[in-house]
């Protein structure tokens, strides 16, 4: 009896907590389809269905362009991080060379340095390279990930070295070995690094705000931030929420499909955006 009460209470508590996590998002999405006067109501079903808020977003800011920018930058970065980090991770796990331990120690050291230290010099570097207001400023600093190298190195160590030796005896090149032999055996690591990299770069906003000033090159989070804080939305809440909904959508769709991978990737590494 006591046990039954306890479990019912657990369900009640968990259910109301879960509701407080889901409901605000549902309210946000429904608010974007409501006429402006109805937005403040907690009801989730609009009395009249309207897409005016979305139309207003498209009229006021180049959100489509921002979406394309974000996709381009995120795809380039994710691809490059997967390729370059796994190459380095392979070198650190399956090749014995002088300096390997030193490189690994340097990596661990740089992981501990807060970004506040490198932020200003990185901006200066972008200015000197002439990359401010170009895609290069968004892509270059993220081309390789120390965390990705670390994760790949750990994972690749579990792949038997004999497998790699055998491929070498068959005359295969190291790059062939990495992408045709190591990769197919490392799908979980690739998924983890891929998801975390994509999510981080998609959601990143501080760096774009610093290096991009022209509207046509802004990524989605930056564009939406500017829209919400500047006067352009004319305090129309529905319109601001519509732009936020569009920003959330791609990651939410990915989350719905790869939920388990998202949760496992982030829980094992403890990384969030």
């Amino acid at each position, binding site marked *: 009896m006591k046990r039954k009460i306890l479990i019912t209470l657990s369900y009640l508590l968990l259910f109301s907590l*879960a509701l*407080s996590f889901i409901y605000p998002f549902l309210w946000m999405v429904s608010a974007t389809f409501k006429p402006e006067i109805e937005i*403040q109501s*907690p009801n989730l079903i609009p009395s009249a269905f309207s897409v005016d808020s979305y139309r207003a977003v498209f009229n006021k800011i180049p959100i489509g362009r921002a979406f394309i920018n974000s996709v381009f930058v995120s795809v380039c970065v994710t691809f490059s991080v997967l390729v370059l980090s796994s190459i380095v991770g392979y070198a650190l796990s399956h090749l014995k060379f002088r300096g390997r331990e030193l490189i690994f120690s340097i990596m661990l050291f740089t992981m501990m340095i807060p970004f506040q230290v490198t932020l200003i010099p990185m901006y200066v*570097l972008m200015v000197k390279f002439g990359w401010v207001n170009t895609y290069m400023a968004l892509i270059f600093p993220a081309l390789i990930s120390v965390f990705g190298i670390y994760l790949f190195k750990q994972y690749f160590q579990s792949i038997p070295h004999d497998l790699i030796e055998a491929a070498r005896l068959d005359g295969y090149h190291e790059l062939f070995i990495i992408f045709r032999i190591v990769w197919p055996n490392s799908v979980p690591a690739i998924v983890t690094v891929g998801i975390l990299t994509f999510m981080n770069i998609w959601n990143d906003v*501080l760096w774009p705000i610093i290096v991009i000033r022209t509207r046509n090159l802004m990524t989605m989070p930056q564009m939406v*931030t500017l829209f*919400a804080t500047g006067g352009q939305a004319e305090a129309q809440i529905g319109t601001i929420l519509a732009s*936020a909904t569009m*920003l959330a959508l791609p990651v939410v769709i990915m989350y719905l499909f790869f939920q388990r991978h998202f949760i496992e990737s982030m829980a094992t590494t403890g990384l969030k955006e």
Partner: protein
Amino acid sequence: MISHDEKYGWILASPYIVFFLIISAFPILFSAVLIFMRWNMLSPMTFIGMQNFITLFQDPLFWKSLINTGLFLGIHIPLQIGLALLISALLNNPSLKGKSVFRSAFFLPVVISGVVVTILWKQLYSTETGLLNSMLLSFGVQKVPWLTNTKIAMPAIALMATWKNLGLYVVMLLAGLQNIPRSLYEAAGIDGAGKISQFFHITVPMINPILIMVIVLSTIGGFSLFIEPYIMTGGGPLNSTLSVNLYIYQQAFSFYKMGYAATLGITMAAIIFAVVTLERKLFERNY
């Protein structure tokens, strides 16, 4: 004759070496120079010795932003750990069904951009029209000036940040709880230990490493608080939500005081390092 491993090791590691020189080594060294300089990026740098640090010590806004960030952490971390422990303990009940549904729900804000979450909560917090206040009103509670009162604004941001990150820590703690052998509890039960005593003598010590990780990660995350006050309050009212990062951003990119901003950055790094070390000393246990 260079061996195969020796040759390919360096070739394949070279992307990182190049990257390290440009992205880590140069910025760190350059920061170490900048802290002794006055520089607005237009005129040449001037060496000013320790002047940046003297300015920093006497800068009321820096101290204000540091205290604000401390207040944020002081609310955010205990609240987060308390709630995450509670939820993960509830979810760890073997006779509970629908675990993964709850887990997915708590995890949703973790994957969504901080920009979206902040824009959403800015509406929820709105004094006159926000959902939170209309809910409070319907319970007969007075309206709360969430973002317009200097005493409430930062706690309100800390509450939102907790809501955003909680799911991650629930999942991490849950994984830790599931690794505790049932037999430990059974043995303790036979010895007559109550549920609460079991929680503090078995559960907490067993998940100590994960708790430390949660504390350290949320400390580092908390010190990089930026976009939330940037969107929600712009640092106001009366600088009550000015975080250190927001302040660095303003000094560097609104006033172009590059030397001073670099000094703030290095000082923050030292403070983060000290706080994390202190936390480990205080909470890390070798059972």
